[in-house]
């Protein structure tokens, strides 16, 4: 029976490559136990096990240890290779937009300033070619997130090998995303103003609007027989701790205002996203127990006089200060998300140890997103969402995947791009014959 399926899958894969219509077929559930042996296991919490044995069954890691751990089922010999937990991409509109310049393919930004009830999950395209291209680099999980406006909507956490959005869900409606106003804003150059940054005169007013909305949401209780207020209802999870508030703010003042407002409004869990100047207020963030999802390290400094390497080292500054830090790339193009391992690798160039750098895209990300009960690290009892790389996955040269698993299901590492690669490599092979 299994063989038959494999045959079908192979045929489908071929058809996909031939026609270029559909994506790789999602893998079937794990049936037999799988053991990865001989690899260096990078746990995702800063620890390493050399020459490790990892056993997983029914999608869950059942045994982990050094070489003397008993193997089970199918054994993958990974001598000299490296095993990592699946990389997690927070705060990204993956699956919501396919081609930036093609408006028809854009589902990431709805009209409106305060629209928490807008939900990303129902628009998530499980067959996105861009999402698929994450997998050969080890990026296996993402928080698919609406963009734009002030409160852009509600995100959900998905895994990247699914038939449909429902199958993709890891955590539905996990968080609300709030883009905090800026004290300074760019001149409206299209209206003839100078392009430079000027004080935002509406800042106080903008904040009041957010505060009012939060307080109303908190106070709101649906009444029988009355039309429910969807926006207020959508905020409810923030006040009982079932959802997190992701606040996007970069400036010192904005960060302080945002966190103070959120806390005062009764929001239980607040995550700071961006935090360009968060390194200046580490004690404040610690005091409020705020984790930070910093912008991707492959960035230029915001201001001319800033250290040229500030974006490179920001995660290290925060981690050294004792904060829980992970990396997202909400401001980059979606396709760039496959570079998450290299964003983390970049921090290693700033003196962070490579294993700690890995936590920025795995263990820490899972903790911040609230999925660390199952994802983010290689530990017994957690999901077998992991990949095997020929070498250091955080380095461009050696991030070479041989296997990847989501919940124990072995996924295809082929993509639209690898198929074209093979197709045209073959063209030139034929010519050279």
């Amino acid at each position, binding site marked *: 029976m299994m063989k038959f399926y494999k045959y079908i899958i192979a045929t489908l894969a071929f058809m996909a490559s031939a026609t270029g219509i559909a994506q790789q077929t999602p893998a079937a559930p794990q049936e037999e136990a799988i053991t990865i042996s001989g690899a260096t296991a990078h746990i995702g919490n800063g620890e390493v096990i050399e020459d490790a044995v990892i056993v997983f069954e029914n999608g869950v890691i059942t045994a982990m240890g050094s070489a003397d751990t008993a193997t089970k089922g199918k054994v993958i010999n990974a001598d000299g290779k490296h095993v990592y937990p699946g990389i997690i991409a927070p705060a990204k509109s993956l699956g919501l937009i396919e*081609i930036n*310049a093609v408006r028809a393919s854009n589902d990431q930004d709805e009209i409106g300033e305060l629209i928490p009830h807008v939900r990303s999950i129902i628009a998530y395209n499980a067959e996105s070619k861009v999402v698929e291209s994450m997998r050969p680099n080890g990026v296996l999980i993402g928080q698919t997130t609406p963009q734009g406006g002030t409160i852009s909507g509600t995100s959900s956490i998905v895994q990247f090998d699914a038939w449909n959005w429902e199958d993709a869900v890891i955590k539905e409606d996990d968080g609300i995303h709030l883009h905090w106003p800026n004290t*300074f804003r760019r001149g409206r150059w299209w209206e003839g103003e100078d392009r*430079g940054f000027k004080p935002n005169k509406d800042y106080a007013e903008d904040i009041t609007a957010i505060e009012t909305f939060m307080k109303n949401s908190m106070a709101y209780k649906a009444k029988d027989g009355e039309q429910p207020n969807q926006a207020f209802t959508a905020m409810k999870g923030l006040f009982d701790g079932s959802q997190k508030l992701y606040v996007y703010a970069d400036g010192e003042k904005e960060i302080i205002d945002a966190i103070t407002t959120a806390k005062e409004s009764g929001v239980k869990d607040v995550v700071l996203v961006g935090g360009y100047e968060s390194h200046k207020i580490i004690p404040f963030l610690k005091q409020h127990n705020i984790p930070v999802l910093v912008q991707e390290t492959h960035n230029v400094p915001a201001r001319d006089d800033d250290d040229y390497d500030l974006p490179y080292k920001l995660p290290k500054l925060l981690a050294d200060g004792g904060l829980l830090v992970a990396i997202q790339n909400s401001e980059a*193009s979606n396709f760039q998300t496959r570079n998450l391992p290299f964003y983390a690798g970049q921090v290693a160039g700033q003196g962070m140890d490579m294993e700690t750098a890995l936590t920025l895209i795995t263990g820490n990300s899972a903790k911040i997103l609230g999925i660390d009960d199952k994802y983010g690290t290689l530990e017994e009892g957690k999901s077998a969402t992991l990949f095997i790389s020929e070498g250091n996955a955080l380095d*461009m040269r050696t991030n070479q995947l041989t296997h990847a698993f989501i919940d124990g299901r072995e996924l295809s590492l082929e993509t639209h791009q690898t198929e074209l690669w093979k197709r045209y490599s073959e063209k030139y092979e034929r010519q050279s014959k």
Partner: protein
Amino acid sequence: MRKLPLVFALFCFLQAVVAQDYFPKNDGVKEKNTNYTALTNATIYVTPTQVIKQGTLLIQEGKVIDAGSNVSIPENTVTVDLQGKFIYPSFIDPYTGFGVDLPKRAERNGRSAQYEPSREGFYWNDHIMPENSAIGKFEYDKMKAKEYREAGFGVVNTHIADGIARGTGAVIALNDKGGDAQRILEDESGQFFSFERSIASRQSYPSSLMGSMALLRQMYWDSEWYAKGNVDTKDRSLEALLENKSLPAFFEAGDKGNALRADAIGDRFNINYIIVGGGNEYESIDDIKETQARFIMPVDFPDAYDVSDPYAAKYIALEDMRAWNQAPGNLKALSDKGIPFALTTHKLKKPTEFGEKLRKALTYGLDKTKALEALTTVPASYLNMSGEIGSLQKGRYANFLVTSGDIFDKKTTLYENWVQGEKHVINSLEQRDLNGKYSLTAGTQSFDLEISGGADKPKSKVSKGSEELKSTMTYSDNWMTLKFSDEKSGKTWRATALVPDKGSQISGRIVMPDGAEGNFTAKRTGDAASKDENEEKATSKPEVVAVTYPNVGYGFSQKPRQTDMLFRNATVWTSEDAGVLENTDVLVRDGKIASIGKNLNAGRATVIDATGKHLTAGIIDEHSHIAALSINESGQNSSAEVSIEDVVDPEDINIYRNLGGGVTSIQILHGSANPIGGRSAIIKLKWGEDAEGLIYDNSPKFIKFALGENVKQSNWQSFSRFPQTRMGVEQVFVNYFNRAKAYDAKKKSGEPYRYDEEMEVLAEILNGERFISSHSYVQSEINMLMKVAEQFGFRVNTFTHILEGYKVADKMKEHGVGASTFSDWWAYKYEVNDAIPYNAAIMANVGLTVAINSDDREMSRRLNQEAAKTVKYGGMSEEEAWKMVTINPAKLLHIDDRVGSIAEGKDADLVLWTDHPLSVAAKAEKTIIEGTVYFDLETDKKKREAIQAERSKLIGMMLDEKNGGGKTRAPEGKDRINFECETIN
């Protein structure tokens, strides 16, 4: 015709209008005033350097008859005794828009751009309007004239401040009492130019600075062609340009760089522009001196920023803080270098701000005589009117100022501004300086009154016992009024008095709070309290921070120097057949790589221990858009005439940041807004040098072409420009090359031909003298351009981006074109749907010369990592991967004989890395160009500290300025445009 207000008409009637002898007069009888006026006993500045003490100025009929200490006073003379007073020639503003309204801003019509001109019978471009004349639009503006006179000006040069070629200007005397027939001293004072488009037309070309430059050049070429009678049709623009060729040419540059740009155009066409500067010339003072141009300088020194909110202060770049501190020294810097300049009120909100601003320049050390010259004799000479204005020598117009003292002293009162012999009172000479303490009695009550502020702006302070009352006072036409009120009780007193000529007592009427009228007396009891400290401060010389190279954060306080150095025991990535050499020494001498080997003798070279480190050639970026002021000239579908070399920006912080990523050479490409783009600039990132210093000597010639979505304007709403399809793109190329071929043939035949910059550039391509780097995505268009090139007998040099190059690599190889591509970009638009990160590897395997480029200021500083991605995607060897950012782009740019590898005799453009250069953890420790260290981790650290210290110092100074009552403005942040191919600017 404007309706003259009755008062004005009446005024004309009362004033005998002198010059219009042959005009009939029916509203009275014709009479003439030929009396003399003698102003005696004054200190007279006949010129800024010829000063007469106790002199007499004799004038008649609006002209100076004589000025001297022994002037004989004829009969029929009205004498004015100016004992203790000063007389100066009144100022001339050589650059204003006085009395000339700007045209109406053209409204946007629809989404599509306007490519055609909106006029007929003129030049083909709406922004070229040499046929315009200020005099045709001139209407004397009495209000504005008053403001100018209050600032000391008697004559202004005016023009229509709109467009690139703006037509002729006019010189106007600010004589309220004459008519235009008298006031207009010259109705064709010069031609005016700028780089700014007209607001009155939406014709899209030129859309960039480099486009404006090209258009100006072409205008001159066309005028030469027109002058020779080669054009059958009438072009009133060119005719006017030619007709006014002998007039002075004024060029509004508004910035040091633009001043150099304007001067370069002038040099080409033998025009000595009088350049209106921007106030930052001190930053490039030697280059400015070299232009040998004459300048007109505004004095709109920036106000301090309000930095009381530290969160807001961080938005201000160090360079902007410095500008506040340094710019008032600009005039002194010019003067020290002997660069001639006149002064203007241009850019000030009001001419009345002029005095205060100029005083600031004086506190920075500008010489007073220089300042006076810059306001009188110099502008007069610019206008070729030294015989008429600018001094008080015999025969000049009687344009002069009467003051209480040194004209530039803050305490000096300007009494009168005489224009063409007509007196305009600014402050009455009879007005007394009432400063002092007085005891005021009104009925049974008495108050203390203190008057300060001098004769022209007296201020009152009234107190009763220890309590201060709210008060205001006015003083004009010998009458003073004083109002004061006790806010607690709501009582108000209102007093008015005729101030006597002399004496220490003022008496007059007072209305008491209850409405009763009575008399008051104010008796002088002593001098007013001394001036407050702020005023003292304003006149002391401020501390000025040092100018750096470039004058921005991370600039060098001294330009770095070339040194001989020996890298000892490095892992050397040669990018040559020699491969990677372990434990190897590299000796750099005189900016070149002198030798490579083991245990080399250092000689005098500085030894750098490179044990455990990697030494490579500097990274070369084939496709960059940093360090430029504009990137796209999108106004036409071909813009071969523009050149990025014209707009290189040596102050872009991204130069420094790229050095920090090990980049030493880049090609700044034109954008991709049109099929035929502009010419490239190939530069070395010599941070601290000027634009010319960055551009390669004997630079290979390149031009950007572009294909696909951008040139057909697919991703923005524009539907009026050809081409809108890939089919059309081919036809644009074929058409232009056909024309260029014909042009070149005509040129070579020896027949007369119209010099066309665009065709010149295209002909260079046909003749194999200029290389194309073409922005390209999909395979069809790549193939098309190669076929077009083959049809015209040349080769495409480089396809850049070339994301579907892997599909036609075989055809590309056959054609002989190289490729410069992104490592892994895709999915951002429809035409990159099939872009794959394996592209570089496939093309390299087929045998193409492949480079990895950036197109982006961020990626460019990590090109080593982007190269490393080719190892992952497609399995390139590390050595080959490294070549993709060094020798391969050097080959594509035809600079591989100089740079791109570590080989003896090549330029010492080197990077010392902390780690394997392809490693994600590698950092550039030193970046060296021609033996000069431009980036160094240690130096960088020091620079950071210096920036912090200097920012803190300047913030402190600005806080003082604010606390001292100085003007401040809200903080502002620079907006750096992240130029990419598609950036329209």
